[in-house]
């Protein structure tokens, strides 16, 4: 398959990435080439094969249900673009 400019604009919206008009055509061509490479996967029938979850077939490690993180809000917010009263500021979402 190949990607049209409309497809790329839709994917870019899903990925929340703003693209220039002229870049859309370039990405359409790039992504079409990449998907062509990816579709070589279809040369092998994988019916019934269990997808890999972890190379070592290990189970997720459990830990005790206790607090391990200390409150570092001030430190973490010191590098935020915009905060107020311990909150991250974004533009108004609800009227």
């Amino acid at each position, binding site marked *: 398959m190949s990607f049209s400019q409309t497809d*790329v604009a839709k*994917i*870019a*919206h*899903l*990925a*929340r*990435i*703003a*693209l220039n008009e002229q*870049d859309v055509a370039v*990405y359409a061509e*790039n*992504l079409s*080439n*990449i*998907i*062509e*490479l*990816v*579709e*070589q*996967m*279809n*040369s*092998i029938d*994988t019916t019934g*094969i*269990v*997808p*890999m*979850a*972890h*190379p*070592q077939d*290990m189970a*997720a*490690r459990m*830990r005790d249900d206790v607090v391990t993180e200390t409150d*570092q809000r001030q*430190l*973490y917010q*010191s*590098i*935020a*673009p*915009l905060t107020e009263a311990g909150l*991250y500021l*974004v*533009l108004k*979402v609800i009227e």
Partner: protein
Amino acid sequence: MHHKSIRQLSQHLQQKDISSVELTQHFLQRIQQHNPQLNCFVTVTEQQALAQAKAADAAIAAGTASALTGIPMSHKDIFCTHGVKTSCGSKMLDNFIAPYDAHVVAKMNHQAGMVMLGKTNMDEFAMGSSSETSYYGVVKNPWDLETVPGGSSGGSASAVAARLTPMATGTDTGGSIRQPAAFCGLTGLKPTYGVVSRFGMVAFASSLDQGGPMTRSAEDAALMLNAMAGFDPRDSTCLNREVEDYTVNLNQSLAGLKIGLPKQYFNADLDSGMAQKLEAATNLLISLGASVHEVDLANTHLSVPVYYVVAPAECSSNLSRFDGVRYGYRCDKPVDLTDLYKRSRGEGFGAEVKRRIMMGTYALSAGYYDAYYLKAQQLRQLISDDFKQAFTQVDVILSPTAPSTAFKMGEKTHDPVTMYLSDIYTIAVNLAGLPALALPAGFINQMPVGMQLIGNYFSESRLLNIAHRYQQQTDWHVQMPAGFA
């Protein structure tokens, strides 16, 4: 001093022939002299380095030092360093001062007392095979300034090869330690998935990412891995294993070693010059007691297609955290929340990162999951099974690290797929979570040739042993790029 191995530097420090401060000043001076040419460092932490060196000298004087205390090193700019900019080669993180240390940084610089000289340049978010996608400009290969150093850990490779740092950390998602090691004539090791903690390592594709050492020799790599590896409860995939000393088996005999040569790698597609160098290397290993056997990695040709589903899918998810709200780049004067997200990401990420996020977003979008991500994870199992089968017959698999020596700058930047294919020999290893080591095996037209040794899970010690025995018989790894003596 910059020609000495890590073991030699350690001896000089312990015997107090030289102080850590003097050693640190020596390397800082070399960085100042050569970095403008190579662009391998994005940040040099001079003040901090000298303070760490002073503390190291005090520890050595007090007799509380470890073998690596006071030895200078550098971190790929993907490892979070408390109070120091951690850019990951991206405009997105150009203003990001990490509020904590990566586990690897805590272990190496605080626990072992090594001195951090600075942070090395890299492909943006570790996406690339040439170190040409960094926001801070291309990195150059000291062996030929017209060629790339490989990527994504190209800054680390360039810096170690030019002797601006005795060692540097790298990360490897599809070959990002091994391919630059090959292009710059270094020894680079990607450990078994889960051996080195990913805590504080900016995530690209979490099921593939693994940190590892980039050094001049296998002995140096073993010493460095001792300081990097180890259990960390903060990385849920980090393995809780007994602490290993990777140096103890370095001198073990190679008698009886079974080496596998994959028939899919040694075919008509392999460059004849590369084939010759690898044959010579194989013959040397045979003279040391090894035997050679053909192995079959039947699904290995699907590694690159599988990787370009798995890695972008995981990257699209991981990089969704960059939203212009909590840290990193925020666009100017957003009109609404969607505009804030879209323009912060559109302006903050470079072209290759955007391509991969979009590829991953598409592969994971409604209705396509089975056709792409699920299919890729099934094939990943088959690729891994091939290795499992091969390791019932042989101890180690030998292959080229890359299809060629370092290529010219700009040669592959116009066609992403051509660039992706420069990792054909390294990617399968990440998909299977195996360890693999790259080391120099000769030169073609004065450029280093890379050889790769792939081992079974947790065979790092054996890989380092084979490489060390090989390096005792060869001098490829001690050769210096002209102009950096």
